[in-house]
């Protein structure tokens, strides 16, 4: 087991290096560089652009260097734990990401908990009461949740909550608290702003998990081991939770790998529409303005989390499903 984990970690490091290279290359693929964006900004202000200005900026941002030089500079500072400076925000990337990370994690984790709390019981109920009225209701709402684009739902909910409850739309804070220090009032204000994003981001996830759990549980319920357990007199509830549900959770656990990065930068569209100060919109912005170090660092962070998540889900699967074993080569 331990040697397996070590081996996986070594693979992960190699994979990360490859990923960093590919990421950096892809970010640089579109025509132009951050300077094009910068110059477009100046132009939009009718500020005259001269060749000297462009040259001096190019030197300053190190954009004139060949690709490999830029890449190795970035890698070296990454190893020191310094993710470089964001061109567009003119601040160290560590700091930029840091300020948003806490809010991203808060929002995503609370959504995740909410989704599991709602979706798993409903999924189990739907499967055990297949074709009942309750199952149909869950199915209808499930499909609706899956089919409605989140950003649209966000807009509709913002409009409705504003019209009927008078809640201030967008963002995680009222304008009075936007630039204020953390205080009790600000926390209360944050809590007041959470429901809409939670509902919006949670809907699709909830619907998906209900469908997955219902499907896989239905497969299990008819299987021999369930019948056997029942004939042996195991209580319905205990039987359900101990055997088929445990197996049916497999597909959900194996998605944890994707979940970790999603916690950091999930629901980008929704976050943009709702003006949530999370990582997703920042990544989009960084990519649009070809802010290489910021975009590259976020993608590296997400890749690393994805790999760690995959490892965790693999280990969890072993723990939860006795049928899964490490292959012993011999």
């Amino acid at each position: 087991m331990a040697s397996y984990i070590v081996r996986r970690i070594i693979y992960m490091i190699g994979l990360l290096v490859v990923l960093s290279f590919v990421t950096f290359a892809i970010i640089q693929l579109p025509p132009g560089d951050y300077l094009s964006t910068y110059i477009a900004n100046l132009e939009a202000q009718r500020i005259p652009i001269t060749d000297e200005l462009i040259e001096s900026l190019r030197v300053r941002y190190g954009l004139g260097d060949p690709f490999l030089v830029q890449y190795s500079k970035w890698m070296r500072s990454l190893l020191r734990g310094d993710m470089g400076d964001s061109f567009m925000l003119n601040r160290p990337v560590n700091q930029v990401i840091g300020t948003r990370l806490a809010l991203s994690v808060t929002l995503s984790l609370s959504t995740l908990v909410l989704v599991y709390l709602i979706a798993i019981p409903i999924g189990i109920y739907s499967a055990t009461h297949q074709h009942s009225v309750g199952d149909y209701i869950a199915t209808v709402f499930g499909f609706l949740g899956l089919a409605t684009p989140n950003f649209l739902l966000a807009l509709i909910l913002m409009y409705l909550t504003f019209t009927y409850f008078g809640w201030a739309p967008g963002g995680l804070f009222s304008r009075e608290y936007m630039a204020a220090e953390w205080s009790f009032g600000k926390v209360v204000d944050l809590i007041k702003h959470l429901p809409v994003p939670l509902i919006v981001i949670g809907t699709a996830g909830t619907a998906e998990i209900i469908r997955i759990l219902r499907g896989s549980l239905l497969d299990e319920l008819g299987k021999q081991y369930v019948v056997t357990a029942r004939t042996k007199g195991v209580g319905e509830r205990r039987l359900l939770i101990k055997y088929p549900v445990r197996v049916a959770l497999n597909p959900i656990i194996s998605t944890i790998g994707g979940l970790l990065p999603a916690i950091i930068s999930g629901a980008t569209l929704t976050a943009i529409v709702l003006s949530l100060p999370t990582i997703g919109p920042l990544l989009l912005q960084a990519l649009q303005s070809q802010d290489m170090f910021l975009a590259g660092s976020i993608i590296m962070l997400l890749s690393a989390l994805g790999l760690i998540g995959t490892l965790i889900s693999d280990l969890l699967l072993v723990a939860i499903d006795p049928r899964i074993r490490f292959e012993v080569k011999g």
Partner: protein
Amino acid sequence: MKRAIRITSAILVMCLLGAAVWAQPYSEAPTLEAQVAAGELPSVDERLPLNPAVMEPLESVGAYSDTIFVFVPDNSPWNTLQEETERGSYLGYIRADNEVVGNLAESFELADDFKSLTIHLREGAKWSDGHPFTADDVVFAFDAFHFDSRVSGSSQPFWLNKVRRAIKVDDYTVRLETDDPFPVMLAKMGEPAGGDWHAYLPRHYLEKFHIDYNPDANEVAAEFGFDSWEQAFDAYDREYQNGFQHLIEDGELRPTMQPWILTEVTDTTKVHVRNPYFWKVDPEGKQLPYIDRIVTGIADPETINLKIIAGEVDLDYGVANVANFALYKENEAAGGYTTLELQDQGNAPVGFAVNQTIDDPIKRPIFQDLRFRQALSLAINAGEINETVFFGLGRPMVFPVVGTSFHLSEWDDNPFDGYDIDRANALLDEVGLENRNGAGWRLGPDGEPFTLTMEGRTVGEESTTFAALELMKEYWEAVGLQTEIKLSERALHIERRDGNLIEVNTGPFTLGSEARQYMIDREFWAHGSHDLNWAPLWGDWLMAWIQVEEGTRTLEDFADGVLPGEEPPQIYKDLFMWNEERSRTVLGSPEYIEISQKIFDFHHDNMLMQGVVGGMPQLAIAKSNLGNVPTGYFGSAIWFGDLLIESEQLYFK
């Protein structure tokens, strides 16, 4: 002797005005009173210049107020109400009648030969850190920044590009000198060129970074984490432009002459607080600005629109657009705000320009044929676009020029403003596109379908733009021209434009104020602005050629020793020179009017840039309890009708 006379006359004037001046003690905001009482600040009289600028309020004298909340789509500078470099701090102010008067400077004298401009500064004016603002700050901007090729400022003399010397006459008098007549420098005092970063810099703050002023500049640079003094200097002058978070974090808050000081930047908010040394008062002697603090939130434009109707936005000059006109109107009462329609510019939100230098042997002669461009105009049902896309707020207008000092009557009934499919078809037949294929598409002289591609930008465009382009495509297809729309991300669009790849460039056709065009838009009339570039290759050639002519570069500076791009026909060189000529006239003078008329007539007749629907109001949103909201002329700072100049008098009723 001369100086003695000036001082005597100044004393005389003071005695005459004495009663009015001294009878009226200056007063300040309660927040500052508290600081003065606590001994943290000198008294208001010590902070103000001897003779502060007096701002006539738009409506009435206001009351000191707490915080104004505004929202912008991103945290770049130059957004409404958060202009970092210039807001309210130009040396001059251009009045609606084109007269340039003092602002931060007290007065100007333009020499009769137009070769020097004397600037009289306000004695006793101070930077936001309390340091005196003097002639040294102006001279420093030129000597250490514009004239010094070692720092990036050397690229900026374009703003006052013919100024060769900045001479300190005394502590409060500076003279800018040129070798050639350059009257435009007077008007430039009332626009960004007359502001911080261009006309003056805080010498006491920046000199430690410059090797000529501090022999240890390299060591200072190293202390601040830079490789060389040039880098450090650039970071602390130019970075001022870029949100300058690091200035705040380094505890190196950059001194400013603006009404508010930026004290906090994150990627979701910005905070500005009042500058206790701001040098303007209202007629009652109350120090401006009235408002203590500007808190700017950064949010998605759609969210900002919701915030507008929810009454959360105190003032908006940038996000509100005509596409949502009905929405704003509907919620005015509930949100407690007013939708302002500012009618002061020609302003066509959608314009197009046919590339005269397109690299296509079939298309180029046709694109260069005036009849083809006339046909494109006649085929467009601008009235319908106005009604369906712009709520009928504008009117059909091919050449959106209003409110200039030259003659407009002939343009008011431009025959090509009309909608006439038959004439459009006839003109297209005449230019050699008379053959059509089975599907009804016109064929080029080579027998292949003649296609047009309109290109625009996806980022930063209003939703109305695409709707209008879609309609234009329909109209052009109705006369047999197969049309495509291609929207690219901004940077890509620029690459394609500069690479001469765009057939029909689309973008807003905004002429700005007359003073503004007079001052900087040389390229605009000569080969198209960045929005509507109609001749990229000629533009490249002309911009290089003028540098060689002016002696700032030689042919050897260019690849292979030849000018880049393509030499334009003589008439376009003339057009370019007319703009040069115009910059040697005084705004509003008979010579100015004559040469402007010539430039505008040329453009009007040749339809190189065409608007579709013009006369569009600029929408602005202001909470009903906000006083002194500018609704018309914005001084010289007509970028997008923002509040660079007038915002210090805003207050809450």
